[in-house]
C-alpha cells in the first residue's frame, strides 16, 4: 500500500509548529498507484464496453427467476385478496410494511453518500456514490411495491393522489400514509434526478468512446448532448451542490415520515418521539450495510481495488459502527422512557418486546444491530474483507428484524388483552419478499452492465492531476 507523508510545517507558521510538534499526518490517497485520468476512464468505461461476461448472464437469469416470485405473489394477492398474506386483526400490517421500511431504509445510504457527504466535503465518497445511488433508486422501487400492494383494493390506490374526480372527494392530508405518498414519491423522483444528472458527463464519455451504432445513439440520447464545456460544468456543479443540499433534508425527512407511520399512531411502543432520529440512524446503518454487501463483491469482480480502497471500507465500517451504536442507544432509551413514563401500557409494550411472544425476533435484532457492529472497533476485523462482508449481511438481517419487532410486537399485544393475537407469515409473504431481492438484483445487474459504475469526472477531480495549480497548495 502506497502512502505519502506530508509535512505541513512549511504551510503553517514554523515557530508554532515547533512549539506544538504535531504528529505526522499520513494522507492516504483516494486513488491508489498513481493512476492517470485515462486509466480511470478505461477502467470504468471498460466495464460497460466489455463483452457481457458469462457470470453476469447466470446472475441475471437467477435474479430474474427469483424476481418472478414477487410477480407471482402479487398476481395471486391482487386476484385473491390480502388474506393470502398472514395479516389478521390485530396485526393488520404484517411483512408488507416491515419490508417497505426495510427497503426504504436501505435506500438511504445512496443519497446520504452523494448528498450529505458531498456537503461535508468527504472526498472519499466519489468512488462509491454512483453505485450507492443506484442502490437507493432500486431499493426505493422495491420499497414502493409493498405499500402499494398491501392495500385491499390496489386498483383504487390512485385515490391517494390528489387527482380531481367525479366523486368530488380528496385525499386526507392528516394521515402519515398520505405524507408517505409525498415523501416516498419525492424521494424516488429526486433520487432518480440526482442519479441521472450526475451520470450525464459519464454518459457523454461513453457516447464519445462508443464504437457500435446502438451505443452511440443509446448513450447519445441519454447524455443530452453534454459537451464538457466549462459553462456546463459550472451550472452542473451548482445544480449538483443544490441537489445535494436539497437531498440532505429530504433523506432525513423521508425516514422521519416513514417513522411517523408508527409514531403518529397511538399504540404503545409506537407512539414515541424518539422514532424519527432512531429511524434515520437505522436507515443509514442498514444503507451502509447494503452498500458494503454490494460493493465488496463488485470490487473483487472488477478489480476496483485502486478506486475502492481500504480507506473507503474503513470509513464505511466506522459509519456502521457509529449508527449501530446510535440504534443501540435508541433501543435502550425506549426502555428507559417506557419505565420513566410510568404508563403501564407503554411499559408492558417494551417488556413484551424483549421477553414476550416475539422475544426471539428482539434478540436477533439486538445481536445483529448492536453487538455485531461493535466488532468494527477491531482493526483486525475491518481489515478482513470477507468478515466485513458477512457482518454487513448481519446488519441487513438485523435491520429487517428491527422493523418486524416494532411493527408486530406492538400490534400483537396492544391495549386490550382480549384482542391480543399472533402473526405469522404465509408462503406468499415469504415469496413476495424474497422475490424483491431478485428484482433488486435484476435492476442492479442491469445497472452495472449498462451504466457507469462510478462518476469518472468526480473520481478524477479528487486525483492530484485535477489541480489547476499543478499540485502545489
Amino acid at each position, binding site marked *: 500500500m502506497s502512502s505519502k507523508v506530508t509535512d505541513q510545517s512549511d504551510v503553517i507558521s514554523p515557530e508554532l509548529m515547533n512549539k506544538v510538534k504535531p504528529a505526522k499526518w499520513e494522507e492516504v490517497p483516494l486513488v491508489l498507484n498513481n493512476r*492517470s*485520468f*485515462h486509466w480511470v*476512464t478505461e477502467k470504468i468505461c471498460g466495464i460497460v464496453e466489455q463483452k457481457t461476461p458469462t457470470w453476469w448472464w447466470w446472475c441475471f437469469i437467477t435474479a430474474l427467476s427469483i424476481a418472478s416470485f414477487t410477480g407471482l405473489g402479487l398476481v395471486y394477492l391482487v386476484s385473491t385478496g390480502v388474506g393470502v398474506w398472514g395479516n389478521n386483526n390485530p396485526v393488520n400490517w404484517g411483512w408488507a410494511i416491515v419490508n417497505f421500511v426495510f427497503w426504504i431504509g436501505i435506500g438511504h445510504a445512496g443519497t446520504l453518500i452523494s448528498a450529505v457527504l458531498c456537503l461535508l466535503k468527504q472526498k472519499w465518497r466519489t468512488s462509491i456514490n454512483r453505485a450507492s445511488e443506484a442502490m437507493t433508486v432500486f431499493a426505493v422501487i422495491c420499497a414502493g411495491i409493498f405499500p402499494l400492494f398491501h392495500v385491499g383494493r390496489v386498483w383504487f390506490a390512485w385515490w391517494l393522489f*390528489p387527482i380531481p374526480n367525479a366523486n*368530488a*372527494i*380528496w385525499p386526507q*392530508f*392528516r394521515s*402519515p400514509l*398520505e*405524507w408517505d405518498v*409525498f*415523501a416516498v*414519491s*419525492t424521494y424516488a*423522483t*429526486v433520487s432518480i*434526478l*440526482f442519479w441521472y*444528472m450526475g451520470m450525464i458527463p459519464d454518459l*457523454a*464519455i461513453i457516447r*464519445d*468512446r462508443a464504437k457500435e451504432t446502438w451505443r452511440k445513439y443509446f448513450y447519445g*440520447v441519454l447524455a*443530452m*448532448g*453534454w*459537451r*464538457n*464545456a*466549462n*459553462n*456546463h*460544468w*459550472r*451550472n*452542473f456543479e*451548482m*445544480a449538483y451542490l*443544490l*441537489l445535494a443540499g*436539497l*437531498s440532505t*433534508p*429530504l433523506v432525513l*425527512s423521508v425516514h422521519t415520515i416513514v417513522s*411517523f407511520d408508527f409514531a403518529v399512531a397511538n399504540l404503545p411502543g409506537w407512539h414515541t418521539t424518539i422514532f424519527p432520529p432512531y429511524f434515520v440512524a437505522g436507515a443509514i446503518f442498514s444503507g451502509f450495510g447494503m452498500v458494503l454487501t454490494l460493493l465488496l463483491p463488485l470490487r473483487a469482480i472488477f478489480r476496483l481495488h485502486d478506486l475502492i480502497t481500504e480507506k473507503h471500507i474503513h470509513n464505511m465500517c466506522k459509519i456502521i459502527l457509529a449508527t449501530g451504536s446510535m440504534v443501540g442507544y435508541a433501543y435502550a432509551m425506549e426502555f428507559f422512557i417506557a419505565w420513566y413514563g410510568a404508563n403501564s401500557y407503554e411499559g408492558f409494550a417494551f417488556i413484551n418486546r424483549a421477553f414476550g411472544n416475539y422475544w426471539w425476533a428482539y434478540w436477533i435484532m439486538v445481536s445483529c444491530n448492536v453487538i455485531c457492529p461493535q466488532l468494527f472497533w477491531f482493526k483486525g476485523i475491518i481489515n478482513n474483507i470477507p468478515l466485513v462482508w458477512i457482518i454487513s449481511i448481519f446488519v441487513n438481517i438485523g435491520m429487517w428484524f428491527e422493523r418486524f419487532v416494532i411493527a408486530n410486537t406492538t400490534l400483537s399485544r396492544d391495549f386490550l388483552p382480549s384482542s391480543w393475537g399472533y402473526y405469522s407469515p404465509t408462503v406468499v409473504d415469504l415469496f413476495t419478499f424474497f422475490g424483491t431481492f431478485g428484482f433488486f438484483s435484476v435492476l442492479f445487474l442491469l445497472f452495472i452492465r449498462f451504466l457507469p459504475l462510478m462518476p*469518472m*469526472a468526480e473520481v*478524477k*477531480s479528487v486525483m492530484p*492531476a*485535477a*489541480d*489547476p*495549480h*499543478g499540485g502545489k497548495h
Partner: protein
Amino acid sequence: MNIKYGVAATFNSAKSLFDAAGKVREEGYKEWECYTPIPVHGLDAQMGIGRSKVPRFTLAGGITGFCTGMLIVWYMNAFDYPLIVGGKPYFSMIYPFPVFYELTILFAAFGTLFGMFFLNRLPRHNHPIFEHPSFGRTGDDKYMIVIEVEDHKFDDEATPAFLKDVGGKSITVIREPVN
C-alpha cells in the same frame, strides 16, 4: 459546404489550460469556451465568468412547491370538502407540514435540474464542437480551448497563433457542415 465555427487548441494538463485561459481572457476574447474532463477548480474566475444562476431556479421551484402544497391541502381538506377528521382542524400549518416540505423539495429539485438544463441549453445533441476530431478526448484526459468565429476579436490567423502562444497543442479549425 462548411461554416467555420472556431479554432480549438488542446492542452494536456489542468494547469496549462488554467494558465492559458487566463491569457485568453486577458486578451479580451468574449466568445470562447474551455472543454475539460473535470470541473476545474477556479476556472470560472480565470475565464471571467460569474456565479451560476441555477439557484434562482431552485428558489423559484421551492417557493412554488411550498405554495402548491399549502394550496392543495387547504383547498382539498378545508375549502372544497371540509370533513371532520379525528377532531383535527380543517386546515393548519402544522399537520400537513410534511406535504409542504416534500413538495418544496420536489419542486426545488425540478427547478434545479431543469434550470441546469435550461442554462446549459440542453438537451442539444448537435453542436459544431462535436465536429472536432478529438473532441472525445476532452471527456477523458485532454483539455481544450475553443475561440469562436463569432468573437469580435477573432481573426483567421491571429487567433490560432495566439492559441499556440499560450501553449495550445494541435490547433484545429472547427468547421460545421451545412446542407
